[in-house]
């Protein structure tokens, strides 16, 4: 089966320069390092994980608990260290496996802090475990020269592009809903709150502008991966990526996400693109230096650029055509690959048969991506609008899609005495937790179960717990989200549709 699969896609095993993977590894490692340091510096370990007495867990992962004391700080410290090692390409496999496990552990602690881009990082770091990002331009390839290679099979780069493409396309599909397209919601609300935006802020409270932004956002998400893939549109597409994400960075408090996307999309550049850019810059410098040559005798820019593929190009004064550089680098890469034909299956492109390991990895990654196609579509299994019920909302790239606010109180009843009283969740939860819970049914249920345990005393069992949850959603009048007559303590948490969620319309 694997033979068939790979046989049908011979192009994917074609050797290509490793340079895009090297650039990707360094940027990813540095950004993750910065992101982790920022998280710690903001005091979020304490505020998010250590201070709250209760945590909202993911279905099936309620056993994941924050380590007590300095334990959690140690975990974050190790995540930062792993990120640094990834950037340096030092003990790469161990570092990326540790990063994936520890980062995912921290994300599983409390779903209050769920962000699509954290999920993306978990997925990406899992994928990176199987890719040879460390085989050039790394400490590993310097310490163990046998590892060093100039070329990798095309699929290793393509896999990351697929991962990014899935994020964008599903984020685009998620925008194809009535609120987004025909009400310009929630962008209309958010833009109106940002009219102080530099230069174009005065447009933000015009409805047509909110529509323009909504539609172009949807089109951007749906098409950008393809424009990045196509060589002719790639430079313009990447400019668009930068512009789009910088704008969202300025508009919304979305942390590291824009920087992560700007860095990750560099994977769409091939070595030729880098070569062309460098050549072009060199040409400019050359022209400049010719003009000022008489004032600065000798070589103006004695640059020596070392490429990941092992090509050393001396940046002298003579212009080198892009074609020449590409030829040079590729031929060197081919030589280095053929010099060590049995070093690794990855650069053994003369062999028509993929190695067993390569086959296994390809099968595994195929399954990985099929799952990622199915998971965002699971909301079709649930009745009602996913934006209201939030059943199948997470892990689906529903980014920046709803403005939801709510106020939820819990009505507790002791059936033995008939006494009834109200619990204000703010007494048990942090601001952030209460805010997130107030409009998410599974979190409301989990808190109701927590209350039942927490309030149960020796004389008190079987407390009935009902929720009075008023939610306002994309500018609609607040209304009840949960059937207030249903005793939530009797409802089991499961992935089945929650019958006690009231329909919106």
């Amino acid at each position, binding site marked *: 089966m694997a033979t068939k699969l790979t046989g049908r896609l011979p192009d994917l095993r*074609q050797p290509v320069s490793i340079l895009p993977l090297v650039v990707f590894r360094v940027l990813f490692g540095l950004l993750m390092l910065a992101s982790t340091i920022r998280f710690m510096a903001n005091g*979020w370990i304490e505020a*998010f994980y250590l201070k709250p007495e209760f945590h909202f867990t993911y279905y099936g992962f309620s056993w994941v608990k924050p380590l007590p004391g300095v334990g959690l700080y140690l975990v974050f410290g190790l995540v930062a260290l792993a990120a640094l090692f990834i950037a340096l390409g030092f003990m790469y496999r161990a570092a990326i496996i540790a990063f994936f496990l520890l980062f995912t552990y921290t994300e599983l602690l409390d779903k209050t802090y769920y*962000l*699509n*881009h954290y999920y993306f990082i978990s997925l990406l770091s899992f994928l990176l475990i199987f890719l040879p990002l460390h085989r050039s331009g790394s400490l590993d390839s310097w310490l163990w020269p046998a590892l060093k290679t100039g070329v990798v099979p095309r699929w290793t780069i393509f896999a990351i592009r697929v991962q990014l493409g899935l994020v964008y396309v599903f984020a685009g599909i998620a925008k194809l809903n009535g609120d987004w397209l025909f009400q310009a919601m929630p962008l209309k*609300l958010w833009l*109106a*709150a*940002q*009219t*102080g935006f530099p230069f174009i*802020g*005065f447009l933000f*409270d015009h409805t047509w502008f909110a529509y323009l932004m909504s539609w172009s956002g949807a089109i951007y998400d749906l098409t950008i991966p393809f424009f990045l893939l196509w*060589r002719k549109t790639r*430079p313009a597409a*990447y*400019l668009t990526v*930068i512009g789009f994400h910088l704008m969202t960075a300025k508009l*919304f408090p*979305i942390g590291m*996400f824009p920087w992560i996307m700007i860095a990750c999309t560099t994977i769409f550049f091939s070595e*030729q*693109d880098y070569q*062309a*850019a460098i050549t*072009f*810059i060199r040409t*400019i410098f050359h022209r400049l230096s010719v003009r000022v040559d008489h004032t600065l005798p000798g070589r103006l820019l004695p640059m020596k650029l070392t490429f990941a593929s092992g090509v050393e190009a001396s940046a002298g004064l003579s212009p080198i055509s*892009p*074609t020449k550089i590409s*030829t040079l680098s*590729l031929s060197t890469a*081919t030589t280095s690959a053929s010099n060590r034909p049995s070093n690794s299956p990855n650069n053994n492109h003369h062999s028509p048969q993929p190695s067993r390991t390569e086959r296994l990895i390809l099968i595994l990654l195929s399954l990985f991506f099929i799952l990622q196609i199915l998971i965002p579509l699971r909301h079709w299994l649930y009745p009602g609008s996913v934006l209201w019920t939030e059943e199948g909302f997470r892990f689906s790239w529903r*980014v*920046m899609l709803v*403005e939801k*606010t*709510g*106020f939820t*109180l819990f009505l507790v009843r002791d059936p033995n*005495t008939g*006494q009834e*009283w*109200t619990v*204000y969740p*703010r007494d048990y939860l942090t*601001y*952030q937790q209460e*805010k997130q819970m*107030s409009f998410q049914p599974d979190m409301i249920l989990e808190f109701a179960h927590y209350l039942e345990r927490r309030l149960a005393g020796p004389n008190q069992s079987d407390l009935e717990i009902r929720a009075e949850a*008023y*939610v*306002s*959603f*994309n*500018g609609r*009048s*607040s209304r009840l989200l949960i059937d207030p007559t249903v005793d939530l303590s009797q409802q089991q948490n499961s992935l089945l549709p929650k019958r006690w969620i009231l329909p919106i319309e």
Partner: protein
Amino acid sequence: MKRSLPLTTRSMITFSLIGLIYLLLAGCNSSAQPEVSETQEAAPPTEEMVTGSGFDRHELLANMADKVIVPLLEDFGEQAAALEAAAHQFRDDPTEANLEAVQQAWQQAAMGWNRLVFFELGSFRNANGDLVSFMEIYNKIDKWPTNVDFIESLIADQETIDEPLIDSIGSTTKGLPAIEYLIFNPAGNAQLVSTFTDGPTGSKRMQYLVAATENLNNKAKELLDIWAAEGDNYAGVFINAEADGGDPQASISLLVNQMAASLEDIVKRKIGHPLGKTSQAGVRPELVEAELSGISGQLLHSNFEGFATVFNGGSEAGQQPGFDDYLDYVGAEYEGQPLSKVINDQIKTTQAALEAIDEPLHQAMENQPDQVELVYNEARKLIVLIKADMANHLAVTMTFNDSDGD
């Protein structure tokens, strides 16, 4: 093997520009924070920079600080000064009439204070870099219930009681609730006057009262100083949203979130707890605020007055920009009606239900619990309108800068 296509000059130019722009932007971003705050101090955002839209949110913030909050603080400052003066008068001439004057001054100060509860706006760094915490000073002025036993032990054990001593002790033994405990007693004023004059502790009780009113007056001045231009100038920080690089949304979010949080806390603690709505213990009238003075209802009324004032940026009919105008501007509706009107109506409905109670709340809890419950339910509807509807239309949770969103 596929050879690279010859690249056109145009795409090379584009590509190198991308690289340069990316580097420049990355550079800008990493140094953005200090740069912004430095320029903010030097030159607050100009009109053209921040206006542009049909609704000037800086004007709303300026109105809120200069025309709503600071005047209310000044009122409270005068009331606190009057209370201190009345206490001095009572110390010099401890008569029943002078005690009554202290009591009245206290009531005025307590009511003035309760209009200010929505402005407990977190903490900030002043020009010297010191952290100024609103919560700290709010607690020193009004933290209830007060610790009666500790007050009595201080009176019994201390040689002399003066303002520095009061300033050094915890929040539950000073401020408005501690003063109330000293000057109101169900036994009546005649008997109460004697506790300030007779016996070994009488003079120390008087010292405690005087020191506590002096301390309260000092705190009122300090709070006004935090907002004043010649002090920590929080008004400037708030109006120019300096903490967030001049984005008025940051200050708006801060204020709206505090309005919601304070309102919820008031409804829960001042009505919910004593009415037995929040526990199995049943009705517990002794949990009301200001039981001794019997003005818990008036204080609650002051809370809703303060809320209406901040919501409307002054009076409902007035021209000053408030959240009512802002909601109208963004076209916020609730079930087909302007949300601003629905909220104002709900404030009035709640106030009317409260005004229908003609006795102190702690008595009403037992005598007319249904009417108190009506107030409670109407107030809870108001919380929903603020926390769910108003917060949604003003996108304040989205922009509340305490973590990342997505």
